[in-house]
């Protein structure tokens, strides 16, 4: 598989949230606003890249029987470092993401990619895979929070993660018709369900077209 495919598959074909359905705990919880989603995406990309690279560098040294414990220790250390950095440099984001930054440790994406890809491939491949998966995750979370914020509050806003008072954009489209259910937990489930249904619809149509072409 060439290098560009390794990177590209994480974005759409094997998107961690929409296709592989990994890491849903954090995806549903932090998608209340675009700023949170972007911040969490950045954190996950950092941890994923670093863990993939480190595990790929160490893959020949780690004995095969104790692979999983070593992965868990490496990932926990990285997440704690990222958490402390976020506490220092992005305090507003740290407050709003709360307990879900430490929960990146048990996020299935990171341990899953480490187990299935980084422990078997070289450093450059692992780096590309991590970047693709991380960007796929960020894209998915941004899509979910776009819908939740738009329908839930009637507007969109994005703040600078490093400086909470700086507004990148803030649009208010409709205030009176917002359905505040979507900022609540129930709305998260419903939004993700509808997005997955849409993707499944596209997949079914593609399969039907392929079958028709085959029959001809």
């Amino acid at each position: 598989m060439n290098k560009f495919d390794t990177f590209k598959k994480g974005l759409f074909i094997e998107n961690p949230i929409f296709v592989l359905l990994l890491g849903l705990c954090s995806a549903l919880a932090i998608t209340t606003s675009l700023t949170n989603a972007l911040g969490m995406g950045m954190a996950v990309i950092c941890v994923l890249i670093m863990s993939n690279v480190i595990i790929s560098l160490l893959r020949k040294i780690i004995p095969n029987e104790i692979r999983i414990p070593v992965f868990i220790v490496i990932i926990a250390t990285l997440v704690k470092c990222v958490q402390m950095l976020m506490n220092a440099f992005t305090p507003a984001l740290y407050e709003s993401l709360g307990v879900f930054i430490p929960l990146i440790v048990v996020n299935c994406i990171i341990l899953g990619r480490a187990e299935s890809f980084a422990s078997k491939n070289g450093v450059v491949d692992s780096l590309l895979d991590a970047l693709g998966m991380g960007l796929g995750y960020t894209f998915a979370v941004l899509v979910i929070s776009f819908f939740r914020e738009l329908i839930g509050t009637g507007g969109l806003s994005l703040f600078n993660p490093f400086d909470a008072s700086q507004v990148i954009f803030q649009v208010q489209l409709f205030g009176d018709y917002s359905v505040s259910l979507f900022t609540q937990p129930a709305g998260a489930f419903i939004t993700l369900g509808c997005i997955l249904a849409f993707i499944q619809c596209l997949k079914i149509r593609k399969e039907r077209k392929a079958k028709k072409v085959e029959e001809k």
Partner: protein
Amino acid sequence: MELVSLFIGLTFVNNVVLSKFYAVCPLLGVSKKPKNALNMGYAVTFVIVIASIVTHILYHFVLVPLEITYLDLITFILVIASLVQFVEMFLKKTSPEIYKSMGVYLPLITTNCAVLGVALDNISANYNLIEATVAGLAVSVGFTIVIYLFATIRERLEIANVPESFKGTPIALITAGIMACALAGIAGLV
């Protein structure tokens, strides 16, 4: 009395799955048979209660006196993982019947957000040991109830007349959303 309201609050109102999103992966991934869901619930209850007690003791009697509270995350995840391994080995040696019914789900509990989430929440809410235990019990009872109800509903959804694009995970998520709405309705209880 506070303990009772803490229990009811964490089990129903702030249900760990439907309102705090902690254990969503097992909710969608574990078998659609209610009996297996119940076994998963038992395994999770066992691990969460013991983990709450052990992590609380370790935090307050080891990490705080030695001033290494920045190691809390690594400590908790290593303790939880060791606990799961130890419980599985213990069940394998002493009781094959129990291992047969619920031991299969034990390795999955390590990456269950709920266990680590409960441990971290207990610390940030500054509970004492009794409150931490009750919180752990409440979280796991809430999880078991939700996962059991969800398995029974999914059993019926398999044969229901669902539109084709919604079959499988999408309709399950929307069902979870409706259940979350129902729980939000009793938010004023505690």
